[in-house]
């Protein structure tokens, strides 16, 4: 291969960078070299270091090298680069940055954006002539596959880039990307690149006579193959640092094996002929060998500071403390040019915004609010103002986690636990953008126990303890949706698509039986009565699976873009004007006249019509702050481990630490020192667990009998652990539990004494029969029901209606809860129901992590205490309202008992 640095493309790009006073980073050059060699890989770089350019300029260099003389005049080249981004909001900024480069290089490339906001006119234009660069969300990429003749679009394609891949890899949208890539690569494997055809286009300026492949390319250099293979299709991921980068890359690149199997031998393949399980052409060493990881070795200095309360509250109440500390951040805001204040939930962000304006009225106009439920125009305005440095501070949620950098941001404040090291780092990275600047992040606890987390975070970052994002496996709901997607356009031939789907990481283990079940489900609607059925969706004609009904196809297209969420309702002013969206479950609890806060505005409900809540401005003082579900993120395993050590360290002051690294009081992290009064109370009432101990507290209150357990493993594992323990206890005696948990521990609450003592406690935490017991406890709780909501939407069972046609669609709507009950009772073997249970099992229960924890418990000392009153540790769990139930009583008996108990009160 020719040296990258001697290539024309490199020279052009380097010179252009120089005019702006920049020099390429070493990692960018490395990525460019791989791209020009037609290789695939993953770029690992933090935001704010030119990661977009590491791939985009690679594509530009490659194009210039292929067309050194005509790169400035060649237009209508067909699609060259697909840029997948997880957030619509990012597309515009990225597109603008790319257009700027292309303009200054005087190239004729077009940049198009394709997402839910793209107008029909623009879509039609793109259909006639694809831009060279298409910036697209995973959903819109699937929508592209519902267009007839979509395969033609990909013939000229050189690179597919998945931006922010770390955000996608562990989600169903990541699975969507995997499937779309398998189709695109599959199309290319079946039909070679159209480069020769594309080259033969008339000179720009002439009429676009497409597909006229007679004349020869005017680039004489083409005789000697330049840097950049003409057949090459490469895939590039761009990712922040996560624990499993290598795996993240393999997942993304997995579909490439389709290309490698086909190209060397037979050329274009016929549908249905691909060999089964063919992995030839794939390095024998294994998947790790495919593609390269290009790492940006840029070390950014990071400073973590905690905002400490003056006095420690011994009974921590979630969310309560944070606001009390609001005044403490004012000096921090003063010191910085711009500050981002990250809040974990939208509800709390509204409250923070209001509070800051109340205590610091001078911030009015310089303080803004940004979260996912706020009207798009307002969000865009906030983003623009951030770029321009017009804002002093922005209160935001994860909505500002991603995306292009806001240079004026100097400081970040994290309110409440970020629940993970990677997310904390990402947020910290939003500050201090010039290379030598220090990223500064303040941690502000929402309850005093969270200060332990601050100490744990510091130590985890010091030890480079960063979580992995585990890719999802066998998501049948996404597959069902994808097959219907393909059936909407040209239809599909099962044998071809089966091979492609198998090439993805998600479905590598899909069996033929399961595949046939999918086909059966989309064609005959699962288990139906023999007669009296008119199920209609996908039809089979001469071996091709198609959706023929225009209405069903249209409904499916609308469906793809549906964001899985609670039923959201639009909120509008009576006189017109959009305020934002809000959960239906919140609105349904309000009466007309009730006031609430949304997007920083006090409004009062007037009426609800169809899916819109009409409001007017309110002057009422006591406005409700809406709560949004789903705002809670679980603590990661990595952070959990450090947390246990940190609590142990906290005992060190008294010389009790068990982990060997005895701390002298002077070296104790400041957060733990501050917490000593709380630890003292915990010690006095109950016990402060060491790393090799598991604390269990049993307390009786007016509410009933509580059992608190503190494994410090994170919310998800606790939920699983609690269900398992509740199930095992319920085998001893008929009993009903209400279950609550947070990241430190969990609670079983019952109206009768809980039979746990030192005679059976080790047995209850035994790893024996774990799988069977987990399965039974999953069935006994409603966890699967909650999982089913997403699955039902993705799998096409819940239809949210055509825009503006809410009423008409109502007779086709049923709630996820009702559907779950109906399926569970009448079609329990259904693939989507099975998936709901499987997801709980795989994701929620995290069997491996649970087993590890139980084994740890077996080796450690279980400390049972019977405190007379609530302890500092248990208080935040007790006040938590998210609860799960598990019972071994007969339902009717339970109702009678509940009634008689209430009668006694």
């Amino acid at each position, binding site marked *: 291969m020719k040296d990258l640095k001697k290539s024309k493309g490199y020279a052009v790009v380097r010179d252009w960078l120089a005019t702006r006073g920049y020099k390429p980073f070493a990692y960018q050059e490395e990525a460019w070299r791989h791209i020009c060699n037609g290789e695939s890989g993953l770029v690992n770089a933090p935001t704010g270091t030119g990661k977009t350019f590491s791939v985009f300029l690679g594509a530009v260099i490659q194009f210039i090298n292929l067309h050194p003389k005509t790169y400035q005049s060649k237009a209508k080249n067909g699609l060259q680069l697909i840029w997948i981004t997880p957030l619509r909001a990012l597309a515009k900024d990225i597109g603008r940055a790319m257009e700027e480069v292309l303009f200054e290089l005087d190239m004729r490339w077009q940049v198009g954006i394709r997402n839910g906001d793209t107008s029909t006119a623009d879509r039609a234009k793109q259909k006639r002539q694809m831009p060279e660069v298409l910036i697209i969300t995973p959903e819109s990429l699937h929508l592209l596959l519902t267009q007839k003749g979509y395969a033609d679009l990909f013939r000229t394609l050189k690179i597919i880039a998945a931006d922010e891949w770390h955000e996608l890899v562990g989600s169903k949208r990541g699975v969507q990307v995997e499937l779309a890539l398998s189709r695109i690569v599959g199309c290319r494997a079946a039909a070679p690149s159209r480069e020769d055809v594309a080259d033969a286009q008339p000179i720009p300026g002439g009429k676009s006579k497409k597909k006229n492949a007679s004349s020869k390319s005017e680039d004489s250099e083409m005789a000697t193959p330049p840097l950049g293979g003409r057949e090459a299709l490469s895939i590039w991921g761009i990712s922040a640092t996560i624990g499993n980068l290598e795996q993240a890359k393999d997942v993304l690149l997995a579909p490439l094996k389709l290309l490698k199997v086909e190209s060397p031998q037979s050329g274009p393949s016929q549908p249905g002929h691909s060999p089964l399980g063919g992995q030839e052409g794939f390095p024998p060493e294994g998947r790790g060998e495919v593609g390269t990881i290009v790492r940006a070795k840029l070390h950014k200095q990071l400073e973590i500071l905690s905002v400490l309360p003056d006095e420690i509250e011994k009974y921590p109440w979630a969310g309560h403390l944070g606001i009390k500390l609001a005044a403490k951040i004012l000096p921090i805001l003063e010191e910085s040019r711009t500050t981002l204040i990250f809040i974990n939930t939208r509800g709390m962000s509204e409250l923070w915004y209001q509070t800051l304006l109340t205590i610091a009225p001078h911030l009015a106009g310089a303080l803004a609010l940004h979260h996912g439920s706020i009207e798009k125009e307002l969000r865009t305005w906030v983003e623009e103002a951030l770029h321009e440095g017009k804002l002093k501070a922005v209160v935001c949620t994860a909505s500002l986690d991603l995306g292009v950098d806001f240079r004026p941001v100097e400081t970040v404040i994290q309110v409440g636990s970020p629940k993970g090291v990677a997310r904390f780092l990402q947020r910290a990275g939003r500050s201090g953008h010039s290379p030598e600047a220090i990223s500064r992040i303040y941690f502000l606890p929402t309850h005093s126990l969270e200060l332990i987390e601050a100490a744990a975070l510091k130590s985890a970052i010091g030890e480079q303890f960063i979580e992995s994002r585990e890719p999802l496996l066998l998501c049948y709901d996404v597959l069902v949706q994808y097959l219907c997607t393909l059936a909407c356009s040209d239809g599909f031939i099962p044998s071809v698509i089966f091979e492609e789907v198998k090439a993805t990481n998600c479905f590598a283990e899909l069996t033929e039986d399961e595949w046939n079940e999918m086909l059966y489900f989309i064609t005959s609607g699962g288990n139906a009565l023999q007669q009296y059925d008119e199920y209609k969706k996908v039809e089979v004609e001469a071996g091709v699976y198609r959706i023929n009904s225009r209405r069903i196809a249209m409904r499916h297209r609308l469906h793809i873009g549906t964001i899985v969420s609670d039923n959201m309702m639009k909120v509008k002013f009576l006189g017109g004007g959009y305020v934002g969206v809000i959960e239906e479950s919140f609105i349904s609890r309000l009466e007309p006249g009730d006031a609430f806060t949304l997007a920083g505005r006090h409004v009062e409900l007037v009426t609800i019509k169809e899916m819109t809540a009409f409001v007017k401005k309110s002057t009422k003082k006591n406005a409700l702050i809406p709560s949004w579900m789903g705002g809670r993120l679980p603590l990661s395993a990595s952070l959990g481990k450090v947390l246990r050590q940190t609590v142990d360290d906290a005992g060190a002051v008294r010389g009790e630490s068990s982990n060997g690294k005895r701390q002298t009081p002077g070296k104790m992290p400041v957060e733990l020192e501050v917490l000593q009064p709380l630890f003292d109370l915990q010690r006095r009432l109950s016990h402060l667990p060491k790393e090799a101990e598991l604390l269990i507290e049993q307390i009786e209150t007016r*509410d009933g009998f509580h059992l608190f357990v503190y494994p410090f493993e994170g919310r998800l594992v606790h939920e699983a652990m609690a269900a398992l323990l509740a199930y095992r206890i319920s085998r001893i005696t008929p009993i009903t539990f209400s279950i609550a948990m947070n990241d430190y521990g969990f609670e079983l609450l019952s109206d009768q004494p809980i039979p746990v003592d030192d005679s059976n406690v080790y047995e209850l935490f035994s790893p024996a029969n774990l799988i069977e017991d987990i399965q039974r406890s999953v069935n006994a709780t409603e966890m699967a029901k909650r999982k089913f909501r997403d699955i039902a939407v993705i799998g096409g069972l819940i239809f949210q209606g055509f825009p503006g046609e809410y009423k008409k669609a109502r007779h086709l709507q049923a709630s996820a809860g009702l559907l779950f009950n109906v399926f569970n009772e009448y079609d329990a073997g259904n693939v989507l129901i099975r998936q709901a249970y499987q997801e709980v099992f795989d994701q929620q229960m995290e069997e491996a992590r649970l087993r590890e924890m139980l084994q740890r418990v077996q080796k450690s000392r279980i400390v049972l205490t019977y405190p007379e009153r609530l302890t500092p540790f248990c208080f935040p769990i007790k006040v938590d309202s998210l609860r799960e139930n598990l019972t071994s009583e007969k339902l009717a008996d339970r109702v009678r008992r509940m009634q008689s108990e209430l009668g006694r009160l």
Partner: protein
Amino acid sequence: MQAPLRHQLQGQTLWLSAQRSLFWEEEKALVVSDLHFGKTGHFRKAGIAVPQGVYKEDLQRLVNLLHYFGPSQLIVVGDFFHSHANVELDWFRRWRNEFSSLAITLVKGNHDILKDDWYRAAAIEVVHPTLVAKPFLFAHDRCDTAPGLYSFCGHIHPGVSIHGLGKQSLRFPCFYFGPDHCILPAFSKFTGAVSMDKGQADAIYAIVENELIKL
């Protein structure tokens, strides 16, 4: 099957059953509401794969009730059929032929949009908006009732929440008896339930699996 519970009202004897029906002894009338027949078929025709078993069970339950009570008439308080005609309704028609001597009166509900001919062919007498059979009145929607007569309605799909110690909470479909009206549970199991205000009620019977429990 639990034996039906007796509920005396306005000097009349009503038998409530956990199978979501009410039998009016004096008139030998079985009263049901919100059957939503054909709903699964309607979903399936639109490509939404809801299992049909739920419809089959609803039909079977109605047969069992007819055998058990042996009524001379069936009063449906609205939403007998979910939407337009489909083949699932053909199945109902075949079923109807086997009970040809049974008089069926439908108090039209908002979902009952079939053509008049269809009801005629199925030998269903349709009334709208109310059916008066003293001392009672039947109307799908409570809004259509008039003062003076005790009325039976459907439409809402009533449910009741029960709370207990230890933060326990459960919700069931129910019969709701107010001072001047009763709201019947939805007969179809392919329906949800809306929680009723217990404070206003004279009596509530929760349907807990196969049992009725008076609250």
